[in-house]
């Protein structure tokens, strides 16, 4: 079995590089220099992380090692790993691109992504460390019917993971295509194959260290870029903003909230999904089981919030500085964006940039740090995608092996060896699925998928989790109905929204513009309260014997949740 994975994965891994080696060597001279620096730096990263995976594989024996790195990660390390898990290429490239295109609006997104962290700290982090073992479903099913709640939690986890994964894979394929000149499918296969190697052989230990290394590289690279960019403005933000306003076609409008958030309902709905979605993402919640106790869990959130907040401030500086600095580099723009004297036409600044606004951070790296730094940032962007997809896949695989297989199908009678084998097979399957979906969705508009993943996490996972921790009257039936209502309403409302009904399914109005059946862009404002409401009403109406037992069991759960007494079993070997 093991040999089968090894060969399958290695072959898949080497294929793209073998195929690309020839064109890279004989390719056009101009592009070759840039590609080779980036590819060498990336190969150094891959070699390093494969070394770590080899080391981690020797230490990964028990299920606890595989799912939680043995529970021996410190709060500081976990804080970095959480930051590495959370700061996706989409936030690095997407938000700096958004700031470049719209200015202040980019900050609104960053803030939404960040403010979920204090909520996790106050309501969830310590609690799930004290109550759970490997997955957040351990916590939401703690005193409830295992079959029902685990099945539901596993399904909503897998749906969240699938949408998040597709968005990452498509983004990865396009990005690597641009950066390294690899074909789209090769890029997707390379990402999928490497991710399978990390997770299958190194489990959570390898995943954690890939995330830590990536976080350090990304923070260091972004810091250098922001400082180098700021130095051209004499380290004066006012000077940077002044020149940006002079350069940008939207002029002063970039300094205040603009078109991104048009009406209060959509603004609040997006805010809810971003804030509470973070607290329901399975791959993020899983990270809290890698630390030994509640104290380290809360320290991890503190460090993670600091790193992530700092990172968003950097992307904001990078986006604004790029407005001014990229306009001085006509070579980054399409020929039609240039005037007769070779300068960039003001109105073409946003539309005319080669590779689109997602490439802004990459172009700025070249502008401030030359070829070598461009190679570094490109490699970091690739590493970023790898770290995020590895975390996602591990969370998906554990939902299959720990929740569905061990608790539901085998009803607790499976042994560790089987459970680990199932999760490795699940990882392999999810990896193939991610590659397949990544290729299938190449030319699809996947922008809505991350939003949908956050909305489902906020509407299905978060309500059940937080109510199971704090509300003693909740019952299995309440949790089941509430969670399903949240999941289904979030998906249905997203399908009816403009992003899917119009942009993906191609429904247009009389003028040929894509339309939605409902005016809501993000479903959270409806689906999240619906979920809470059904948890509440169904639990209150539940007078079964089982419901009575579950209410009585809350006291013991709360004592363990508050004090950690009884949680040691999940900590010691």
């Amino acid at each position, binding site marked *: 079995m093991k040999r089968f994975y090894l060969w399958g994965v290695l072959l898949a891994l080497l294929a793209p590089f073998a195929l690309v080696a020839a064109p890279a060597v004989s390719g056009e001279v101009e592009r070759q220099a840039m590609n080779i620096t980036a590819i060498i730096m990336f190969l150094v990263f891959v070699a390093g992380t494969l070394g770590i995976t080899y080391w981690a594989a020797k230490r990964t024996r028990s299920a606890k090692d595989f799912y939680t790195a043995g529970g021996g990660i410190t709060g500081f390390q976990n804080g970095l790993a959480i930051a590495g898990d959370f700061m996706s290429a989409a936030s690095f490239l997407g938000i700096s691109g958004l700031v470049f295109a719209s200015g*202040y609006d980019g*900050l*609104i997104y*960053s*803030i*939404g992504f*960040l*403010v979920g*962290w*204090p*909520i996790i*700290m*106050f*309501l969830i982090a*310590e609690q799930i460390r004290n109550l759970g073992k490997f997955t957040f479903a351990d916590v939401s099913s703690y005193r409830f019917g295992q079959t029902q709640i685990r099945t539901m939690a596993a399904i909503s986890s897998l749906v969240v993971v699938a949408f998040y994964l597709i968005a990452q894979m498509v983004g990865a394929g396009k990005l690597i295509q641009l950066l390294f000149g690899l074909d789209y499918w090769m890029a997707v296969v390379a990402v999928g194959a490497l991710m399978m190697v990390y997770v299958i052989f190194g489990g959570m230990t390898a995943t954690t260290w890939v995330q830590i290394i990536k976080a350090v590289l990304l923070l260091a690279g972004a810091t250098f870029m922001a400082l180098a960019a700021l130095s051209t403005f004499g380290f004066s*933000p*006012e000077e940077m*903003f*002044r020149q940006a*306003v002079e350069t940008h076609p939207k002029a*002063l409008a970039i*300094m*205040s*909230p*603009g078109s991104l*958030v048009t*009406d*209060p309902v959509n*603004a*609040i709905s997006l*805010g809810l999904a971003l*804030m509470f979605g973070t607290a329901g993402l399975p791959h993020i919640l899983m990270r809290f089981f890698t630390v030994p106790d509640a*104290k380290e869990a*809360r*320290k991890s*959130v*503190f460090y993670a*919030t*600091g790193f992530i*907040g700092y990172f*968003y*401030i950097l992307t*904001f500086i990078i986006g604004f500085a790029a407005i001014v600095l990229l306009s001085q580099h006509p070579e980054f723009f399409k020929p039609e964006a240039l005037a007769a004297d070779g300068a960039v036409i003001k109105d073409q600044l946003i539309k005319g940039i080669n590779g689109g606004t997602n490439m802004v951070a990459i172009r700025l790296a070249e502008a401030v740090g030359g070829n070598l730094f461009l190679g570094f940032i490109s490699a970091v962007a690739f590493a970023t995608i790898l770290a995020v997809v590895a975390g996602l896949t591990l969370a998906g695989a554990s939902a299959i092996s720990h929740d569905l297989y061990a608790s539901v199908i085998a009803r607790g009678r499976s042994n560790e060896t089987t459970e680990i084998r199932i999760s490795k097979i699940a990882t392999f399957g999810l990896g193939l699925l991610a590659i397949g979906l990544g290729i299938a969705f190449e030319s699809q508009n996947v922008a809505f998928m991350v939003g949908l993943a956050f909305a489902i996490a906020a509407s299905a996972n978060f309500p059940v989790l937080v109510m199971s921790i704090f509300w003693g009257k909740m019952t299995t039936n309440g949790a089941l109905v509430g969670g399903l209502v949240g999941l289904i309403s979030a998906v249905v409302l997203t399908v009816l929204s403009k992003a899917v009904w119009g942009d993906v399914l191609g429904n247009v109005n009389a003028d040929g513009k894509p339309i939605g059946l409902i005016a809501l862009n993000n479903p959270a404002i409806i689906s999240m309260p619906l979920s809470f409401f059904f948890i509440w009403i169904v639990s209150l109406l539940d007078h079964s014997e089982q419901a009575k037992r579950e209410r009585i069991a809350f*006291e*013991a759960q*709360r*004592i*363990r949740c*508050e*004090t*950690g*007494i*009884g949680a040691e079993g999940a900590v010691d070997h």
Partner: protein
Amino acid sequence: MQLDSVNAIKAHPRYQELVCSRKCFAWNLTVIMLVIYYGFILAIAFAPALLGTPIAEGAVTTIGMPIGVGIIISAFVLTGIYVAKANSRFDALTKAIREDLQ
């Protein structure tokens, strides 16, 4: 957990203190974060021009900039406040309960 130890812990005065003080503290901080964030979102939704006010006469920088960065810093500071109190007060209470039980 055994029923008698559940009752023993439940009746422990320190346990009551721990549950109450942590609950109040955590929910208060949650409310502060929600007020800060949704205050910001509502300002964007209903009064976008407000955040576009220059910070000084003739400046390009708007008050929205320090406010936005301030919210990011406030999130970090709030988590720091929680960690500081939990590491000292809540952990001390938990330790006392555990020692009494042994």
